[in-house]
């Protein structure tokens, strides 16, 4: 079985997000990390490889900062890493999905795993966009992917803790919510080591047509309310908690 894992790097939300006066994100100050759900998707693919001998390819749209992420994936056990060359640097996610769909048409895989969503655009739409564009069965918000010959089994999650076990015929696209095990760790030293021998492939593709809506502006939510902030000192804040709970009769006074 050939598995493609689509991976993307996203801004680290621990850092402050700065906006330009035009309502664009100030990108120079951002630091990037691999999208956590993509790391879950990669882990699930590597577990499938261990169980059934799949070949795992990690695929990223080349934004200029995906090399570390891809080398790390190779060091963890992926067999190939592919960068999709985009003509323009700023792509909407719809355009990126169209690029990925075009690639998947020319280099066919049995199973494509994406992260369930990514924190930057919070879209969670790539699995569906690819499924729709390629005409493949697809399911998002899934876990526990098992290969069974010409099909895969997985668990899909719904609201309130409901779930279902699904079987999908291959080729299929799955949006991964969580891997069966926490993503494996690989040391920086091992990644550096591998970087000397392994190489990343670059593939040029012409995106399939897609309808795009430009984002007019980004802005901070006007907080409907904001917490009354207590002291940042733990002991003082704890005393303020106790006072509040006493006044609300939530603890005995």
């Amino acid at each position, binding site marked *: 079985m050939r598995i493609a894992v689509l991976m993307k790097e996203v801004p680290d939300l621990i850092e*402050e997000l700065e906006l330009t006066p035009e309502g664009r994100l100030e990108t120079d100050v951002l630091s990037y990390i691999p999208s956590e759900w993509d790391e879950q998707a990669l882990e699930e693919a590597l577990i499938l490889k261990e169980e059934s001998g799949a070949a795992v390819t990690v695929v990223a749209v080349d934004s200029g900062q995906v090399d570390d992420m891809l080398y790390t994936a190779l060091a963890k056990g992926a067999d190939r890493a592919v960068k999709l060359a985009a003509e323009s640097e700023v792509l909407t996610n719809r355009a990126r999905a169209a690029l990925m769909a075009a690639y998947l048409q020319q280099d066919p895989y049995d199973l494509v795993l994406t992260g369930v969503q990514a924190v930057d655009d919070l879209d969670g739409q790539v699995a569906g966009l690819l499924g729709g564009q390629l005409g493949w069965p697809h399911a998002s918000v899934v876990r526990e992917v098992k290969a069974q010959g010409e099909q895969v089994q997985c668990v899909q999650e719904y609201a*309130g803790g409901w779930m279902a076990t699904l079987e999908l015929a291959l080729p299929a696209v799955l949006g991964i919510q969580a891997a069966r095990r926490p993503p494996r760790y690989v040391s920086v030293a091992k990644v550096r080591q591998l970087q000397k021998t392994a190489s990343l492939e670059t593939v040029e593709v012409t995106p399939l047509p897609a309808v795009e809506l430009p984002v007019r502006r980004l802005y901070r939510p006007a907080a409907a309310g904001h917490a009354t902030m207590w002291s940042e000192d733990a002991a003082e804040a704890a005393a303020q908690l106790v006072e509040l709970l006493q006044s609300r009769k939530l*603890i005995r006074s």
Partner: protein
Amino acid sequence: MRPILVVTENQGAELSDSSRELLSKALALTEAFGGEVVAVGFGEGAPETLKRSGAHRAVAVGGSAVAQYASLPYERALHQVLERIQPSLVLLPNTTLGMDLGASLAAAKGMAMVAYCCGLHTESGALVATSQVYGGKLLAEVAIPVEEGAPGTVVTVLPGSWAPEALPNREPVLETLLAEEAQGMVVRETIAPESGGDVDITRAEVLVSVGRGIQDPENIPLAEELAQVLGGVVSCSRPVVDAGWLPRSRQVGKSGLTVKPKLYLALGISGAPEHLQGMKDAELIVAVNTDPAAPIFEVAHYGTTADVLDFIPAAVEAIRERGA
């Protein structure tokens, strides 16, 4: 304007809350732009719940292929509905259904797509959608084309984005559609939510809820101690469950449980939209998070940027001193 199609979900024998939100918004938009609202529902209960949708027209998709949710047969049936209705706008809840079907319909039908929408309003004759981005730290604004020749737009809306108006007492003109069996996808088994086991977090009055900021499974007993002195129980965010530090029955949020305790203490939880969905209606919310820009502070009533690992022992001590 061409019709607005609302894809509804049922919750027991009723339309789900998010379906009612979408219907009430769609009806308000037809007042601004003209046109009709068409509601589509699936499964045995659909003809009955669609009667109460307030829509102008409704399509009930039935047959064994859609007796339970599966994206493929639902998608095939929606393709037929879209062909027939040619909507200018398709609204879906941003639930698993919306995440499965929203984008695939847009891609297959050459329509535009707005995901994670939390606001839809008119602005001098135009339709503007707002979506949450960057984990809810920013909002993105997009103008949706509604003129005659526009390709149509699919919008998936976060449940709970606005309060639904009462739906009009109008019985829609109902059509039925028999869904075809779809080769390529089978639902083997439906699994009910894990029962609380030892504790039921939906019944607790006090929840001490831990997120990734708790850092290590060895710190969970700290939270348990605080819960104990407060007479409550420990709940958590999703990553804590995925890491195996607490059982799934303790998870609060979109794919976990919805809770409404008297006190919700959020310790090291950022306040992602999927988490807020499960706890924002708690009576009193106190958040402890070192990041002053964490979205949790927007729903919390009180907060501190103290380190949770300092705060928890301090709180246990303070409560023991005064409470004893």
